[in-house]
């Protein structure tokens, strides 16, 4: 790309028409190159969709090279089903139903005009190309939906994600408010510790936390997946604090002069101005909770009825490994909601990623 840009600058004195043409060419080339990368990058999604729409029989035909799931087209003649082939004749290629296959010559019937009787054709019928039509097996989704009990997994995930989201919002807003507005001794050191927890490998706290939840009888319940979110986390506090710092203090002070306490300032001055960042944190948490696998895996191992989508899909796909069309259908069902939420909230979402990633 860099060299292509260089080409466009070779002759700065050339006519405007030429340089515009060159610029357009460069744009087209760079865009085409990016499009090719994007195509390959998203190709696994295409693979997923078309496998999810194939029937078991189509996938078991290893010799079948077609990418799009198809079925042979047949024609019913005198109570029997016959496959249709493309047959080269003197009138061009015709689509005819093969009634009597033979190595030297075969008998066909014209589906458009069956009353005309059998049509003879000289040649080996095996060289003929069968006519196939696209056949999408939408039923896979229904089968997967029922056998995985998707509504239950979905409800479990929603409960875990939304209660955790409430916890993370309540706690992170309070903590970010404290960091943004209050004179706390040693605040800078506390903030460094907070940020430091981002790069702490989670294994180092895993076993005692697990042992603790086991000791108080919380394993095989949702509590270990929800309660910790009521105690704030570094990413979201950072994101909220950065936003709160940009809000003018004059409004806080005006409210305080009117007799508002710190809690009133938070609820009626800070929060109403912060909807974009609050939405970003909510979406972050929802997507994170939807994706979370390790927590549910260790805490809900004995309770399949409580498991969320992530673990449910994995367990199901482990059992149904050979049924690739169902595996891909469940994978697709599990990704649709986060992807839709992202597409709807992509502006605030990507803005939030940038704030936590660049400003630190």
């Amino acid at each position, binding site marked *: *790309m860099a*060299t292509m840009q*260089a080409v466009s600058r070779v002759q700065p004195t050339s006519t405007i028409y030429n340089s515009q043409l060159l*610029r357009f060419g460069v*744009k087209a080339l*760079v*865009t085409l190159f*990016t499009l090719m990368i*994007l195509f390959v990058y*998203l190709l*696994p999604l295409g*693979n*997923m969709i078309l496998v999810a729409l194939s029937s078991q029989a189509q996938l078991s035909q*290893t010799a079948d*090279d077609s990418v799009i799931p198809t079925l042979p087209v047949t024609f019913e003649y005198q109570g029997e089903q016959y496959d249709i082939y493309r047959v080269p004749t003197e009138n061009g290629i015709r689509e005819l139903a093969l009634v009597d296959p033979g190595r030297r010559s075969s008998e066909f019937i014209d589906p458009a005009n069956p009353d005309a009787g059998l049509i003879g054709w000289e040649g080996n019928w095996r060289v003929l190309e069968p006519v196939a039509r696209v056949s999408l097996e939408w039923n896979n989704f229904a089968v997967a939906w029922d056998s995985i009990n998707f509504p239950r997994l979905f409800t479990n995930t929603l409960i875990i994600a939304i209660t955790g989201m409430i916890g993370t919002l309540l*706690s992170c807003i309070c*903590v970010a408010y404290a960091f943004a507005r*209050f*004179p*706390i*001794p040693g*605040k*800078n050191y506390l903030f460094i510790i907070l940020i430091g*927890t981002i*790069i*702490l*490998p*989670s*294994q180092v*706290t*895993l*076993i*005692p936390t697990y*042992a603790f939840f*086991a000791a108080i009888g919380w394993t095989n319940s949702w509590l270990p997946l929800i309660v910790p979110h009521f*105690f704030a986390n570094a990413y979201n*506090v950072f994101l909220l604090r950065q936003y709160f710092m940009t809000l003018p203090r004059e409004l806080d002070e005006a409210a305080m002069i009117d007799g508002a306490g710190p809690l009133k300032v*938070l609820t009626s001055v800070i929060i109403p101005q912060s909807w974009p960042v609050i939405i970003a944190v909510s979406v972050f948490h929802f*997507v994170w909770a*939807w*994706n979370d*696998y390790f927590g549910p895996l*260790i805490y809900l191992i004995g309770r399949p009825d409580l498991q969320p*989508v*992530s673990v449910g*899909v*994995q367990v199901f796909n482990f059992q149904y490994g050979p049924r*690739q069309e169902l*595996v*891909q259908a*469940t*994978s697709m069902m*599990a*990704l649709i909601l*986060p*992807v839709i939420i992202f597409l709807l909230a*992509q502006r605030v979402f990507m803005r939030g990623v*940038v704030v936590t*990633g*660049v400003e630190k």
Partner: protein
Amino acid sequence: MTIAQNTSTAGVSSAQARRGERTIEQRQRVWGWVFLSPWIIGFLAFTLFPMLASLYFSFTDFRIGEPITFVGLRNWQRLFEDANTVNALGITFRFALISVPIVIGFPLLLATLLNSKVLLAKPIFRVLFYLPYMVPAVSGIFIWQSFLNGQTGWLNRLLRLVGIAEPPNWLFDPRSLTFGLVLIGLWGVGNAMLTMLASMQGVPTELYEAAEVDGATPFTKWLRITLPMISPVILYNLVLSVIGLMQYFIVPYVLSNTTRSNPETNFFNLNLYRTAFQFGEMGFASAQAWFIFIIALVLTIAIFWTSNRWVYYSGEGR
């Protein structure tokens, strides 16, 4: 960088408070601690205390529901004697060496393209390149497993189409497994791409204009201006990806559960999970956890230490 900002605002607010009554500042402080308390409690309960407890457990023989017995350094000694653990460390490091340049280089390429003046429809490209990052990890693994299938996977069909007669059986052949895992990891670069892109967009245009006056080619500008200016973000992503690889779990776990339990996917964190939750050896697993924590800490410090040489902080920082 933010720390400096923080100091000044804290200074201002305490100065403002000092003008008022002393009791107001004291009350403000109390309120501050109240609002801070969720994190303080959470940090003590879910970070600091468990960290210290797992350090203690690493010197014990500990199983859930059984009395804890102190065994001194035996678990730590086992780290270097247990073949599985030693292998797991080797697998993790070898994978990190191959994977890190790619999970930094690929988003850098994408960000460069998305930042380029000559790319059309940038917002659409940005959303679509970020999209796979939104795919839940479990789904992503199954999707890639199908895509990388030696016979029917689209990747190998594509490779056969362009003339590669015998493409590798990515996830089954131990020789190509690492590259299969690297390919799966490509869907995880969304955040790195966005942060690099945002950082590139923040580079002052005067720098490029000055370089153009001096007759710099686009590649020179990229190498001498863009790259140094975004180096803090590269550093941040480098640290995060190294820490992330030390915790690499879900991909090898799901693959070894669905394809076959091959020793090549026994990454350190998967080995730790098996030690703790399949064999119930919480003490030995705690020693492994602290060991990988120390390694991650040393690597992070080493990266920051070398960063003086290659990371450029402009002015007083942003």
